């Protein structure tokens, strides 16, 4: 089994405002999706969601504020799954609720140190 990192990206700034009920429904989709991966015994870590904003530190102590003007899509969170192959990890990623808001999932194999 190998670990694969899922990086969730979306254009969070340009999303229509949603009601508490809609937000609740989205949360449920995520929880059911993660629960479904865990039910297949393929979840290494549910990972975390990231808050908006942040800083970018560059050489020579240059610190800039996020969100980052040069990219539209921000990382909204990450999870780690364990599967035998990249294809299997990709199959799992296809069920991710991020596609409903036009986002994407980057799937990367983790290279253990």
């Amino acid at each position, binding site marked *: 089994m190998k670990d694969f990192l899922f990086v969730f990206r979306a254009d969070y700034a340009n999303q229509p405002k949603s009601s508490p009920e809609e937000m609740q429904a989205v949360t*449920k989709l995520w929880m*059911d999706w*993660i*629960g479904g991966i865990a039910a*297949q015994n393929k979840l290494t870590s549910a990972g975390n969601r990231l808050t908006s904003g942040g800083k970018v530190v560059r050489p020579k102590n240059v610190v800039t504020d996020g969100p980052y003007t040069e990219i539209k899509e921000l990382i909204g969170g990450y999870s780690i799954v364990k599967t035998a192959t990249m294809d299997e990890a990709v199959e799992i990623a296809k069920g991710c609720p991020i596609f409903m808001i036009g986002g994407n999932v980057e799937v990367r194999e983790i290279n253990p140190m």
Partner: protein
Amino acid sequence: MEQKELIPHLFRTEYRKIIAVLCKLFGIEHIEIAEDIVSDTFLAASELWGLKGLPENPTAWLYTVSKNKTKDYLKRNALFVQKISPAVKYTSVKSEELEIDLSVKNINDSQLAMMFAVCHPCISTESQIALSLNLLCGFGVDEIANAFLTNKEVIYKRINRAKEKLQIEKVKIEQPALTEINDRLATVLTTLYLLFNEGYYSASQDEIIRKDLCIEAMRLTLLLQENDNTNTPEVNALLALICFHSSRFDARTNDKGEMILYDDQDTNLWNDELINKGAYYLKESSKAEELSKYHYEAAIAYWHTNKNDTKEKWETILQLYNRLLQIEYSPVTALNRTYALAKANGKEAAIVEAEKLALSDNHLYHSLLGNLYTDINDEKAVEHYQQSFKLSKSSIDKTTIAKYINKLQTHKN
């Protein structure tokens, strides 16, 4: 209770109490002597009671006879007196005057001390569990082998190796210190959890033994809950879980000993007293900083005691399962989660999820799919139930599954 049931029952409840007291008295190096004395006592009981009938108070009889046998042993065995008596902790007097304290308090203290001695880190978790079942619960090697789906020899070796290890390490049977409680409580809880499950889900048709196991698990957990040093949120969560599940004990089998599934149970038979007790312990457990798997399982069990079949109930149960699976995966949890998903999100969605589980060698997997396909694709439902029937090892399960197949087939015609 009939005599032929009484001795196994007493063996189950009293064997481990006397063993605990004697082991604490003699020390871990002499478990075998304690075991021999208690076995002899039960052997004497089965012979004598068969001939002369039951004594007025069988438990008191067992205590008196085992005390006398211990004293006899000490008198007879000079070597033992020389070597062990100085080590015997709770007496400075000669062995003839040795007090063997079988009071409730000393039994409880000894069992608690035993629980923590057995869960010493020098032996593997699986050995700890086997030894706990043997010494703390009076399980025979056969029964333990059954519970772990392995053979007698494996368990026998495992128990003996564990005892040797404890003796080599000179593990003391004494009130656990706070650091030991932190280190070993998790193993103690795992053992109690497995013990309860063995009783609650066992394939055995022997209702008395099954109930005994559940009651024993509850009592041992209660021992932890009643001791200030071990009264942790996790212990309360496990106790809540045990209470909630036990509340359905009378509702889940019919007169013939056949299983009645949750959906078909007469909710009037659910035990409100145990449900209320469970609710109390669940509240106590909420003082935790971090929620354990017992917290989630107790919360799931709590929602199952809710008699109304609402959307809210199943949605909450589903989310609790989603959390639980992130802490600890097990095939049964995955299947139960999918059942809750069917109730909350509909059968079609649940079928898709179920088929991802890759548990096709598990009879419960096919029972679940049989249930999910019923009314959607009855032919497929029958196929899955038939597969489940083939894979199932318990006759109770087979009877239940056959009923479903029968129902689907008559429904079709």
